[in-house]
């Protein structure tokens, strides 16, 4: 009987469920360490979606055509929508949306490293749309088999939209690389600046005992995801005559994997600790809206429950 089991026995039974491929629902019993690991991971994902809307959002007024403006607006709306969906999933793990957002805007929790960098040119918008969303999709597709079922449902909602964003980005890239020399250079310059943050995006090589992998909240190591990214996108970049700023990057037939240069991990840690080039600007934007719009949340929460 579950009620007569010790905590350790319940944890062992729970772990056996995960190892057997069973899915965990929000109302199921779960060990504290699972709940905390899942909450931290999903909260960070939600934060990243909301913060990730900002670099591209600033380009909506400057999009070169109405078509691009519409598609970029829709993409930014999608990213914020992903944040909403993910905060809802995270809330059921024991932290309110208000607390998560307050922690985010006050710098107490993290968001993905790539959203701490400036998007200076339209080439950056193309890069983000194709290769940052491409990197995110490599990660997120792996999460479709995660152990926490509410998160899997969110991924089923999010992945098709990320695939759409990828096409949007790829189309932007194709237009630039097949355009004028200046347009090609715009994209090449974006690749040169964004490559290291993209390598950072997958994180350092996973630890031997990564708790997220242990609990099935993540299903693949950082390194295997980065390798998949190389295989999917680097040949395409090379086919378009676009180089990447890593002289060592090449497929190693003997090892059956890509050789690549380790990026500057000190830079990575500096950024994820909240000291990136745009961290403070972007957080202050979100904080200003959070603070000045508090009354809207209060009005909304005060609507009498008619259900």
């Amino acid at each position, binding site marked *: 009987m579950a009620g007569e089991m010790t905590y350790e026995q319940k944890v062992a039974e729970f772990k056996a469920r995960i190892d057997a491929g069973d899915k965990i629902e929000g109302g199921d019993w779960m060990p504290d360490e699972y709940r905390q690991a899942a909450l931290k991971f999903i909260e960070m994902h939600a934060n990243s979606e909301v913060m990730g809307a900002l670099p591209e959002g600033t380009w909506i007024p400057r999009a070169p055509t109405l*078509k691009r403006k*519409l*598609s970029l607006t*829709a993409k930014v*709306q*999608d990213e914020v*929508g992903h944040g*909403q*969906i993910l905060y*809802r*999933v995270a*809330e*059921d793990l024991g932290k309110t*949306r208000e607390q998560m957002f307050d922690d985010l805007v006050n710098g107490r929790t993290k968001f993905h490293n790539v959203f701490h960098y400036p998007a200076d040119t339209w080439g950056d918008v193309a890069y983000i749309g194709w290769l940052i969303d*491409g990197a995110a*999709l490599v990660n997120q597709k792996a999460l479709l088999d995660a152990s926490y079922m*509410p998160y899997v*449902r*969110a991924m*089923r*909602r999010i992945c*098709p*939209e990320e*695939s*759409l964003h*990828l*096409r*949007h980005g*790829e*189309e932007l890239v*194709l237009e630039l*690389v*097949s355009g004028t020399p200046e347009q090609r250079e715009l994209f090449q310059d974006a690749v040169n600046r964004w490559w290291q943050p993209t390598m950072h995006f997958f994180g350092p090589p996973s630890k031997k005992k990564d708790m997220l992998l242990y609990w099935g909240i993540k299903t693949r190591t950082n390194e295997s995801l980065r390798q*998949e990214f190389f*295989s*999917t*996108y*680097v*040949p*395409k*970049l*090379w*086919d*378009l*005559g*676009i*180089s990447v700023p890593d002289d060592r*990057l*090449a*497929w*190693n*037939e003997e090892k059956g994997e890509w050789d690549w240069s380790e990026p500057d991990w000190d830079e990575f840690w500096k950024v994820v600790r909240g000291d990136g080039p745009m961290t403070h600007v972007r957080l202050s934007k979100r904080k200003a809206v959070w603070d000045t719009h508090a009354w809207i949340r209060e009005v*909304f*929460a005060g*609507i*009498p*429950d*008619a*259900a």
Partner: protein
Amino acid sequence: MPVWEVLGKRKAGDEFELVGGIKAPDVEMALVLARETHFRHKEGVGYAVRRRGDHELHVGSYGGDVLGGVTDHSYRRQEAYTGVGARQKRISAEFAKRGVTIDRPRPPVRTGG
């Protein structure tokens, strides 16, 4: 604020399936938020919400013909990008002829993406 489960039907004849959740003060707002957060891209032909802990299903009034919008929102969907993959192949082939491509060791079989 109450939590509402969001359910959807991908195509006519399907049973309602749990697709996510939202928080809303009442059923009217729950249906609006469910529609906007989960069916904006024409993901289904029907939607409903159920207050967590209740059995009663509240079915949304938008049918498959209007769910996801009735004006041209194709830029929100894959269909707007049909042919991008083929264009990428065409441009790559053209660049190969012009010697623009970068020839470096790569995996023998390319994966999609």
